[in-house]
């Protein structure tokens, strides 16, 4: 299992899609390819944009299917961040 603390890279308001993409490509995909589970730790992240969360996880759901969500846990998310993640996860699973 790998634990990724996001605050250092994304700051208190997670909005930079380039950083999201980097995390996805450099950390999330290699971990999943290596069969590891992932903990995305949002401690101290106060807010996030839908664009950021989309850039972080949508491609994983598209590539690996909905089952990839069994391999990823979202830790220490406040209500806002939970809401944004839920929106992205829902629309990615419902659209074809």
């Amino acid at each position, binding site marked *: 299992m790998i634990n990724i603390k996001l605050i250092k890279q994304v*700051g208190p*308001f997670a*909005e*930079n*899609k*380039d950083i999201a*993409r980097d995390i996805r490509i450099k950390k999330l995909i290699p971990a999943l390819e290596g069969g590891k589970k992932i903990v995305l730790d949002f401690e101290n992240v*106060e*807010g996030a*944009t*839908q*664009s950021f969360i*989309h*850039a972080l996880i*949508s*491609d994983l759901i*598209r590539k690996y299917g909905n089952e990839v969500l069994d391999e990823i846990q979202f830790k220490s998310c406040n*209500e*806002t961040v939970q*809401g*944004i993640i*839920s*929106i*992205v996860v*829902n*629309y*990615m699973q*419902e*659209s*074809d």
Partner: protein
Amino acid sequence: MKIHIPHSAWLNSIDTFLQEFDPSKPDKLKITFNKKWMSIHPMVLSMIAAIGLKIDSSKIECEKLEATSKHYLERMKLFDFLGVDSGIKIKEHEAAGRFVPLTQIKDSKSLTKFITDVTPLLHLEPIHAEPIRYIMSELIRNVLEHSLSEHGAIVCAQYYEKSNTVRIGIADTGIGVWKSIRESHNPTNDLEAIRMALIPGLTGTTKRAGGTERNAGAGLFFIKSIASINRDFFVMYSGTAMYKLLKRGKKIKLHAEPFDDRHSKRNDLPKLDGTVVGIDLSLDTTQEFTLLLKLLNETLREAIKERKKARYRKPQFI
């Protein structure tokens, strides 16, 4: 080009200002002012600054300012953007709690810094700061990713104590909404392109419903929804078209189709090469962001269901 800054130009009456904009002779700019008073939305300032950045300052002519409110334009740094000496001397007031002067953002890094700085500048409570930084971040990022403007995004904002409202304006002189959407779709005109840009799941970066790994095509829909829920104005002007979200009635209902919202629209305005967005956020009616997210979730689900239904085909028995 000619621009006249009138007595007042707010989002509810922005049409009058826009229809007087003269985009002919694009290598020159003449700006005239109301002689007595000018009370204008940040959208107007952002638009003028963005246009001014494209033109050599020696070709920008500003009429002598007489109105008592002329200091406002200086303080918002309009003349710095135009490269014109206004002749106005002001004591620089502390910006905190009042306004974000015109700022040019050309890359992702400066956007992140701007968003970090903006909340303390406007001195907002978290409940109000959340939608404002969200809106600014998503709108500016849209410009950086889709407008192809060499000058990036021009943004400014102002807090109005009397109405307890933050008003935001963001402009670019890039390819405009029509060309951006046309990369993957076939909008018939500027208004249709704005409509498409506001529909969730539709993006200029792909024909595929639901977007790409980078773009979901939901950013503008989110922003329009924040304005709708809070009963605020939202205006988008690009090419010859303008879409204006009007204040909704008592019933809270989000629409994936922007023409189903209470709105006004036109497609006969002077042609603007680029895009300008204006939004008002009343701090009295700001809803909890989490409530907004719940409603957005439901609306997006419905939109996806509708989209699937529209693509569903029955077998043809002959």
